[in-house]
């Protein structure tokens, strides 16, 4: 339950990002503000400060003010408010994580169930597809897809996804994790298929589709539901890795991964820019994992006997 509470808290504050940015901090977290300034302790300070010591090289953004009304965590290398971007970044990261997990779980369920139920050549083909996706280096796929799609967008018939759309990282990440969910579901379906009630349904003449929908899916659903929060956590971590490689969310949009990427260029002078999003990802992933465990306990009473967490 603590997990759920933390998660709700994080989601809420991230959803409130626009309110924070407009009303409290009065900053635009997406516009560069290189020559801008702010007030700290009544004094006006430049957001990006020229170094005055020694030879005078280097420009450093201001560090955390620990003041909620502005630049709580300081400024990044474009003079933007890090904390406001952190909240907006949470929206993107959570959206990508959740949407790709949803997409992944739905497609993986369909494919896994079909593979497990029908067996034979269909299963063989789908299993090989899973093998290929799983052994395929995600970074190559992501880099190439990104270069192609992010420069020109995706055009399939009537479907047009603009370049830089969040839908692209969602697609890539969902595709990569399909085998991870599909394989266990396939195994589960295969063992379910041998059970008596399924045999009975087949014997009574029900169509395959009906059996899949009415008998197998409800039995597989708990596993999928348990998987879901775990997948959200994994996908968020993957999204941040892709943003580290500059092939996920495109600037000036923020996600926790892109903020980490920005922060790595400031690591020696303003470590908080990289630390804060990493900590946020960790907290969110932890609460998602705890939630996943809780879901598993809820669906499988025997698991309770084995203890919580």
């Amino acid at each position: 339950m603590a997990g759920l509470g933390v998660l709700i808290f994080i989601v809420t504050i991230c959803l409130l990002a626009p309110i924070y940015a407009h009303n409290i901090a009065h900053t635009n977290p997406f516009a560069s503000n290189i020559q801008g300034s702010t007030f700290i302790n009544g004094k006006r300070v430049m957001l990006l400060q020229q170094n005055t010591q020694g030879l005078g090289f280097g420009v450093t953004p201001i560090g955390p003010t620990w003041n909620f009304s502005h630049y709580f965590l300081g400024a990044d290398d474009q003079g933007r408010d890090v904390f406001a971007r952190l909240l907006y970044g949470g929206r993107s990261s959570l959206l990508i994580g959740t949407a790709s997990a949803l997409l992944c779980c739905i497609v993986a369920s369909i494919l896994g169930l079909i593979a497990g139920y029908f067996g034979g050549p269909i299963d063989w083909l789908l299993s090989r597809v899973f093998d290929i996706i799983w052994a395929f280096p995600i970074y190559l796929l992501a880099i190439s897809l990104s270069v192609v799609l992010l420069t020109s967008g995706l055009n399939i018939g009537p479907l047009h996804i603009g370049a830089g759309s969040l839908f692209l990282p969602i697609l890539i990440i969902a595709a990569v994790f399909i085998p991870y969910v599909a394989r266990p579901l396939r195994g589960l379906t295969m063992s379910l298929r041998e059970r008596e009630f399924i045999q009975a349904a087949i014997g009574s003449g029900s169509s395959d589709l009906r059996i899949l929908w009415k008998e197998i899916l409800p039995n597989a659903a708990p596993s999928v539901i348990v998987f879901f929060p775990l997948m959200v956590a994994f996908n968020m971590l993957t999204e941040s890795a892709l943003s580290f490689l500059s092939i996920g969310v495109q600037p000036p949009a923020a996600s926790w991964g892109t903020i980490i990427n920005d922060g790595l260029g400031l690591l020696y002078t303003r470590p908080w820019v990289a630390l804060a999003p990493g900590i946020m990802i960790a907290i969110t992933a932890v609460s998602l994992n705890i939630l996943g465990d809780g879901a598993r306990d809820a669906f499988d009473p025997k698991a309770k006997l084995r203890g919580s967490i």
Partner: protein
Amino acid sequence: MKKFRLMRIVGAFAATLLVGASAVTSSVPASADSSSFTYQPSHAGGTLKLLASTAGGTLDPQVNYTLQYWQLFQASYDGLLSFHKVSGQSSFDVVPDLATALPIVSNGGKTYTFTLRKGIKFSNGAPVTVNDVKASLERLFKVSNPNAGSWYAGIVGATACLATPATCTLSGVVVDPSTNKVVINLTTPDAEFADQLATPFGSVLPATAPSKDSGTTPIPGTGAYYFKSYNPNTKLVMLRNPNFKVWSAAAQPQGYPDEIDQVFSNTPESEVTMVENNQANFVFDPLPSDRLSQLSSKYANQLHVNTLTAIWYMPMNVNIAPFNNKLAREAVNYAIDKNAAVKIFGGSKLASPVCTILPPGFPGHVDSCPFQTPAGSTYSGPDLAKAKALVKQSGTSGAAVAIVATNDTVNAAVAQYAASVLNQIGYKATVKLLSANIQFNYIQNTKNKVQISLTQWYQDYPQASDFLKILLSCSQFHPGSDNSINISGFCNKSIDAEMATASTDMISNPTAGNALWSKIDQAIQGGNAVWAPLFTPKQIDFVSSGTGNYQFSKEFYMYVDQLWVK
């Protein structure tokens, strides 16, 4: 030239060539300055450890086009001519190297006669003969040297060599082993030929060198060092050439370290830490911005700053929307704050804003900033209101614009800033970040419909034509090709004609020539706002506390072989 990976360096200036005259005139300024570094044997020895995060490509001096390895080639290979190995402005002068003296130029500038020195050996012990000289020139065509079709195409016989490189025998190169003379005949006079021979492309290699790009296999050379081993993932090792004796300290001086290593695969942050701890001597990569403050306070005496004639700029595609509209281009110039870009690069001590195509200190440069309020000679700042008005006036408001830049920290930051500004003045701007290996060719190819990009240009030699003619003339615009360095696609026949006039003027009357180049610069930028020039950067080198005798060449930057580790 572009700085990393793709580079074209040439050398000096040949302003004294008289076209059409049959008198024996030198096409290379008779440099009376034969000064050189004074060698101090007490500092000889030790191992120099250079750091670079990635390898620089092939070790073949007739193919490699990167500053990273030209810095090493200058100490390991020699041509008939070379650049003066001193610091300061003279480092752009051409001096005789394997030739005994500067060439005798005759036949109206079409014949160069050299005499080869005797007694010089390659690092494998074989003597250097005139046959090696001829074979090396032919090899340029066999290995498809990037400039074989431009710089060296004027040699008699080059056309046949370009068509069938495998059987290349340059009929225009005549050598005589008994007199040690090398005669090179050109089809037309070429003011820059001497400089082109002085670059590492003009290195004299053994005639037995392979007829294709040698890649990771080193070729023996005549310089103070030779390449011992090369693993592009770990390191490169150079050792003293046992067969080297100084014949001209002005052209190829004795080196200090016994061994020079270049170590790869570390991140720039780790590299800076290693140099700080004296675990390595020098970082080749650009210094990470977040270390600059610390370096300039704690390690100030290990930092060396040198001015460059180079420019960071944003070429705008004048052939597609929205920047085919001149008012839109002017708006961009009014809107972008060059001082903000300077800040991103590291501050005003490391870069200065520029408003023209030719950077300050360059022949033909005139201080003039037309796109600011009020217009003046030095940059005063942006005018967003005027920019917004211009955008409205141009009718391009609301257009989607994509800025294409490389994905390293500084370039990405400048591009993001520019996108933010474009959004403010009424466009819908986004940033497309590509890796450096893709971006440079990508922005040149018109098929990619790049509207505006961010790139850099480093001079090859101090001639205005290197900027204006190379980057903005019709002949440099190749639609549909990956190599079309006139990225803006700007093609104006009357300005092209003026460029031709200016080039000819430069030979007889440089003052008039440079004045004309200034006019051309104003016409292209002031009159047409083809680019958004940002700033001119400085070169900043960081060496460790255990490294001494830092010397800077305007051609090859830091002399690696002159550093003391003892």
